């Protein structure tokens, strides 16, 4: 029987470019000719670059977006395997140092279209209103040039576009609900709920996480197979690869994959006029552009600016303040592991599915400013082995025995705010990468407040783990999420960009990624990066040709545009208070 009675299985090795199990990339991509000038050259396709490119393309701008890695076909390129997914990470050479050196790669930077969003766990909490004013409130860090109210409508919009699944009522920060329903719990989430409720700590079950809880159009719902951070082949987990990039292409944007941008070119009148990049064949090429947006995240963005040093900007492009590369932040990401009598099977369900932000805000009873969140994490066996080595010094036969016990362990993650320090920075090292470009040298130290916060936080997480019924509790010190290193602010002396991502030094050079965040809160930065990108896009669109023609800075905040979302944003999901959305 050539055609089975109830239809054929969909063949994964058919011709279409697959983005998840059901979504295909059907539209041919527009290609700009060599030497053709475009409106925007965007460097990076992750949370910042992907959203920005989609919106600019939809508004009718001519956009070319570069990514150093490949354009993933999820069925062909990805495997549901911990070791087989190393290609998703930015594993080019980098130098790390300082008193608490960061591990770089799988945990904090991505390569390929979609950037880090293809391997994020997709936890998508918002920042709290207090996060925007920690200097005024707590005397630490720095205030944002924005208010929570500026970003809130963009948070709401992004929560629809991804969309975000989570409880109908999320009590912390600015209380809100989520458009998609909460996920069912895995073993780790059950443990977190048990531990928190035993201690009387409120806990959010089933989100907020950018993973579909019910299917939406051609994206199927989550099937709880647990390979979120190895690249979701199902297409249930949101990443700009499947949420925003297809719409950017449909609206005429060109995505140039496997193209490593080497420097931004400065033209006359202190304005940039394009980017140099290494094409897929390794030749250096030039793309002429009326404006350039860098969205390379907290290490590659400052590296590109520093590598673009030229006459007039000897310390690096847009670095007259000497702030480029400074105030790099990572979040304290200690992992606390507990052994349970009953099997937990933490490989099941997304790593991200429950959290508490009860300790998020500054508490005067504690001897440090700011706070932390407690989240579920579900390491697969290789990560688990690393954590066991680090947490228990396990090795050899002892490590093997522990690994055989994997099913009985649960793990919670601390997510603690580390304050911005000028000496935590990205610089250029003497070493060069495969393109002959100087690599980034990352220096990271903890301050006093950070150490106290981590100490208190990790003890609290261990307490919750004990309350959940764990018989043995261990922990590994670790850091997660990068932000900062090209921060925004009102003062050109102490910041790199203004509140619309425009560099203070160069009127047609923008930065649109996590590196512009002045502080980080205890929330995973992805949703905030996307929201800032959408906000920057609205600004660029309303400014129109003024960006290309003049150096004048209009600091008027433009109204949010609700007509630039990808298809299928509207008409799905839970009824929710849309008072901010309709006003």
């Amino acid at each position, binding site marked *: 029987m050539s055609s089975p009675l109830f239809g054929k299985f969909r063949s994964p090795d058919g011709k279409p470019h697959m983005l998840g199990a059901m979504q295909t990339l059907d539209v041919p991509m527009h290609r700009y000719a060599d030497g053709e000038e475009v409106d925007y050259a965007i460097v990076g396709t992750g949370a910042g670059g992907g959203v920005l490119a989609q919106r600019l393309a939809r508004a009718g701008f001519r956009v070319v977006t570069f990514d150093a890695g490949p354009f993933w076909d999820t069925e062909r390129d990805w495997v549901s395997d911990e070791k087989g997914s190393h290609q998703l990470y930015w594993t080019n050479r980098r130098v790390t140092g300082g008193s608490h050196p960061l591990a770089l790669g799988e945990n904090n930077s991505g390569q390929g279209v979609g950037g880090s969003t293809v391997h994020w766990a997709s936890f998508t909490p918002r920042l709290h209103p207090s996060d925007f004013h920690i200097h005024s409130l707590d005397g630490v860090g720095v205030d944002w040039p924005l208010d929570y109210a500026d970003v809130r409508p963009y948070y709401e919009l992004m929560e629809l576009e991804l969309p975000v699944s989570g409880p109908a009522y999320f009590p912390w920060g600015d209380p809100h609900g989520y458009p998609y*329903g909460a996920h069912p719990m895995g073993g780790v989430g059950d*443990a977190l709920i048990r531990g928190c409720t035993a201690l009387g700590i409120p806990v959010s*079950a089933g989100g907020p996480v950018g993973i579909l809880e019910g299917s939406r159009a051609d994206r199927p719902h989550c099937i709880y197979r647990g390979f979120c951070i190895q690249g979701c082949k199902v297409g249930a987990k949101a990443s700009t690869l499947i949420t925003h990039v297809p719409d950017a292409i449909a609206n005429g944007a060109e995505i140039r994959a496997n193209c490593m941008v080497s420097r931004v070119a400065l033209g006359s009148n202190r304005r940039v006029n394009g980017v140099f990049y290494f094409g897929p064949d390794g030749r250096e090429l030039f793309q002429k552009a009326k404006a350039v947006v860098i969205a390379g995240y907290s290490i590659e963005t400052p590296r590109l600016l520093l590598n673009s040093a030229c006459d007039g900007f000897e310390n690096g492009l847009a670095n007259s303040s000497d702030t480029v590369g400074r105030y790099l932040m990572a979040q304290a990401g200690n992992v606390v592991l507990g052994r349970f009598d009953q099997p937990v099977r933490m490989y099941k369900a997304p790593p991200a599915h429950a959290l508490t932000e009860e300790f998020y805000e500054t508490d005067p009873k504690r001897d440090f400013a700011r706070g932390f969140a407690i989240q579920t994490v579900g390491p697969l066996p290789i990560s688990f082995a690393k954590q066991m080595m680090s947490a228990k010094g396990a090795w050899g036969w002892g490590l093997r025995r522990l690994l055989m016990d994997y099913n009985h362990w649960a793990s919670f993650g601390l997510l603690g705010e580390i304050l911005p320090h000028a000496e935590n920075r990205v610089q250029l090292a003497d070493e060069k990468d495969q393109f002959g470009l100087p690599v980034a040298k990352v220096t990271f130290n903890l301050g006093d407040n950070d150490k106290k916060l981590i100490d208190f936080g990790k003890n609290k997480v261990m307490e919750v783990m004990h309350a959940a019924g764990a018989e043995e509790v261990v922990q590994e010190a670790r850091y997660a999420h990068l932000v900062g290193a090209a921060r925004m602010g009102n003062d050109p002396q102490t910041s790199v960009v203004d509140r619309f991502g425009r560099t203070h030094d160069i009127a047609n050079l923008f930065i649109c990624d996590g590196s512009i965040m002045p502080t980080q809160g205890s929330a995973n930065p992805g949703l905030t990066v996307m929201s800032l990108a959408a906000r920057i896009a609205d600004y660029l669109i309303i400014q129109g040709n003024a960006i290309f023609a003049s150096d004048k800075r209009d600091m008027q905040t433009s109204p949010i545009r609700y007509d630039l979302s990808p298809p299928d944003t509207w008409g799905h999901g839970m*009824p929710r208070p849309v008072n901010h959305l309709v006003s």
Partner: protein
Amino acid sequence: MATPEADGVPTAEEETPPSPGTSAERDLQAVDLDIREGRFQRWLALVAGLSSILSGGEVAYEHYKGSYSRRIMYTPVILSEILMVCGVGGFFSPRIARTLLPAVSAITLLDGTVGFYFHVRGVQRKPGGWRLPIVNIVMGPPLFAPLLFGISAYLGLIASFLRRNENGTAEGGILPLPAHARHWGKALGGKHEPIDPAQDVREGRFQRQMAAAAAVAAFLSGAEAWYSHYKNGFRYKVQYTPLVVAPMLMIAGAAAVKSVRVAHTWLPAISALAMLNGGVGFGYHARGVLRKPGGAKKLLYNITYGPPIFAPLLFAASGFLGVLASLLRRKPE
């Protein structure tokens, strides 16, 4: 397996005069007579309204689990609330019972059918579609749930045909047939009013239809119980019981269509058993919700992801249909 219900049903006579006895017995007999003669519009409207709360609650959290990812998923939630209002309204007002209640019930039944189509499609859309029927029925949208959702609408529709029991006598019969009932009667093949099917319902002579409805409802909810309990791997032995009771009720319902004897003996007995089973199941499901991590402290979340708390009561509803059928009269042969 005779039960008190079966014993309490008068068998042959068309009219039973109020017999002497205690006042409670007299009340029971009066109620029985009302049902036999189709004078229970008020109560059936109320039952339709209240059962609509259950099916509405069930569909609300089930569709919440599906994140309302299609706009049409709101319709049963909204309709069940309207039906609830109409059912309760029908208890108080004959006008509502004869106009709004049947209209909303008909729309709800239609909605259930449309929902059934979407659920079939949902199973088909899963990887493998209907080529992997067991996996995809178990893991896909609950196939028969939209039809089960129609039970309360069916009750509402039936109620709209009935007479009211004001003053406990045949006075209810003075009101003319409602307009929609006349149309339905014609559509169903009746030639003139006194003998058309709508008039039969009006006078309580629809035991066969109700018994058939009980059998269908037992099939639907039994299938629901099968694939839902299968999902849990029949972890508890008691999870098999609805799978035993449902076929019994199906057979009894079908047999009652043929046999008046079965309608007055086995049908009420097995129906009562189904109601008991549903009640016990509700207890187990409630316990399951409370035993989830966080228990009552995460009540709403645990109701969403615990065992479907109202589902056993929908199973009991098919038993209710059977009990109701046993109390009705049959159309004269």
